[in-house]
């Protein structure tokens, strides 16, 4: 078994003969922010899909806190403390912002049918607690005023911020953020980057897929450069930036 907090060994994945990931390994400690960069189609999102349980790898292992999570159902992995966002910004647009945040919380007695009818007062109380917690999170993120509007009515940048808040409401220990600042205004980029950086103090770890290299340089402790499904370079942001292999991959 592994001795690292989060580690991945020898991941391989093919899609109908097309190689998506080949022999990919990495590891992460608590309170670390790891940047995952590389050209489109490099396998970064596939990696997230495997770690979060939506796709099973052909070979390889994922270990979180010493437990193998490789082929566990996605919802179980989410409840183990690994949460993710999606490149195409998934949210429940039909319900309110507050509902989205509360939805992402674990430990909700009101979600179990028996508790909807029996032991009503207890589940109401817990519901109220969850609600205040969710509101507090929204306030910290600056979305308190939008709490009761439909998530679909938020601006794109606000929606991205919301999906990050949803991960936080789950008290996730490892966050997989897929392009959290792509396509949004600089003001919101600053806000989101600030939130991500602050996670270090809370001993939460982040793996970040981003194309915005400046942002990656700014907040990541380490960076992995992926291309064609393999790890090409790994190290501090500066080292990877100056790595001739990386430069070559980009100019190809």
């Amino acid at each position, binding site marked *: 078994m592994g001795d690292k907090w989060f580690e991945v060994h020898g991941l391989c994945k093919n899609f109908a003969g097309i190689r998506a990931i080949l022999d990919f390994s990495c590891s992460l400690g608590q309170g670390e922010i790891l940047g995952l960069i590389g050209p489109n189609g490099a396998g970064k999102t596939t990696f997230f899909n495997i770690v979060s349980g*939506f796709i099973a790898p052909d070979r390889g292992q994922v270990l979180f806190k010493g437990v193998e999570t490789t082929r566990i159902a996605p919802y179980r992995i989410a409840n183990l403390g690994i949460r993710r966002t999606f490149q195409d910004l998934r949210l429940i647009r039909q319900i309110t912002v507050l509902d989205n945040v509360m939805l992402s919380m674990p430990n909700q007695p009101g979600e179990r049918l028996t508790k909807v009818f029996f032991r009503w007062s207890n589940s109401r109380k817990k519901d109220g607690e969850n609600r205040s917690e969710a509101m507090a999170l929204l306030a910290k993120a600056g979305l308190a005023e939008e709490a009761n509007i439909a998530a679909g009515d938020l601006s794109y940048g606000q929606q991205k911020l919301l999906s990050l808040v949803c991960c936080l409401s789950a008290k996730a220990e490892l966050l997989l953020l897929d392009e959290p600042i792509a396509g949004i205004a600089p003001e919101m980029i600053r806000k989101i980057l600030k939130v991500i950086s602050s996670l270090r103090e809370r001993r939460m770890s982040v793996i970040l897929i981003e194309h915005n290299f400046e942002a990656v340089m700014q907040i990541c402790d380490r960076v992995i450069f992926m291309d064609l499904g393999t790890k090409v370079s790994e190290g501090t942001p500066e080292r990877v930036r100056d790595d001739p292999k990386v430069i070559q991959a980009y100019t190809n």
Partner: protein
Amino acid sequence: MDILSGPLHGPIGPGRNDRVGRVRLVWQLVVNGIITGSMCALVGIGFGLIYSVGRFFHFAHGMVFTLGAYFVYLFSSLFSLSIQFSIILAIIFAPFVGCLIEIVVYRPLRGKGAGSLVILIASLGIYVVLQNTISIVFGDSTKSIRAGAVHEGIVFCGAHITTPQMAMVLICVLSVAMLTGILHKTRIGHLMRAAGSDPGLAAALGIDINRVILYAIVIASLLGSAAGILTAVDVDITPSMGLQPLMLGVIAAIVGGIGSIPGIGLGGMLLGIAYHLGVWKISSQWQDAIAFTILLVFLLIRPRGFLGRRINGAIL
């Protein structure tokens, strides 16, 4: 149920216990099965074609079958035109209604960006409206078109088969061959397959999706109406007669592979044969349950059917 167990499929002789008699019986059942299978395959092929090209389930397709039958009845019995002329008119009018459905309902829906579920729901509504309209106009009771003497037909290797029944099988086989040829060898066929496999890309390349879908519906409706017309000329008709061929056609399409015309044709035949052998072996009414159980099994285990392409894409 009436279409499949009525007097249509030749005399099943008195229970003869000798070998020859049994073989003859089985052969007659197989032939009956091929006939029924052809009828359902004609409907199923159309259904599958529409799904392949337009990516939606046109449940109202069963109505072109019924309309084909009732148009023949209308023109021959109520307008007293000759049977041949009635058939010609029916083969024009019934598919016309099919096109009308596409133009009046499905096309505007697609224009509004309606998903396939919305179109499916609309098609259910259209089916209900059309079937009940026929009930009101013609009444619920069974009608029949007696074009002179009862068709005697021929004896084909010991099995009885009437002229309309032969035509049904022939048209089915020809349609499968021709349609497969059209889809793979002609320009319009290529357009249809392109539109079906990637509508976005096809539209970007300048293919008029609406026109292509209309072609598919025209072809499908022609085949479906033909089946209905031949059935009308052979047996009785009722407003709900289209439901059974539609259901079996859908099963044939899914089991045979919804993207594969030959697959659906084959699936239909096998289904028909299984149905009639089933009448003989088990009490006649359980076939529906069995047919649909087969469908469920296929949906769960092999949604692309025997010969079809992949239909469920990746989730991410």
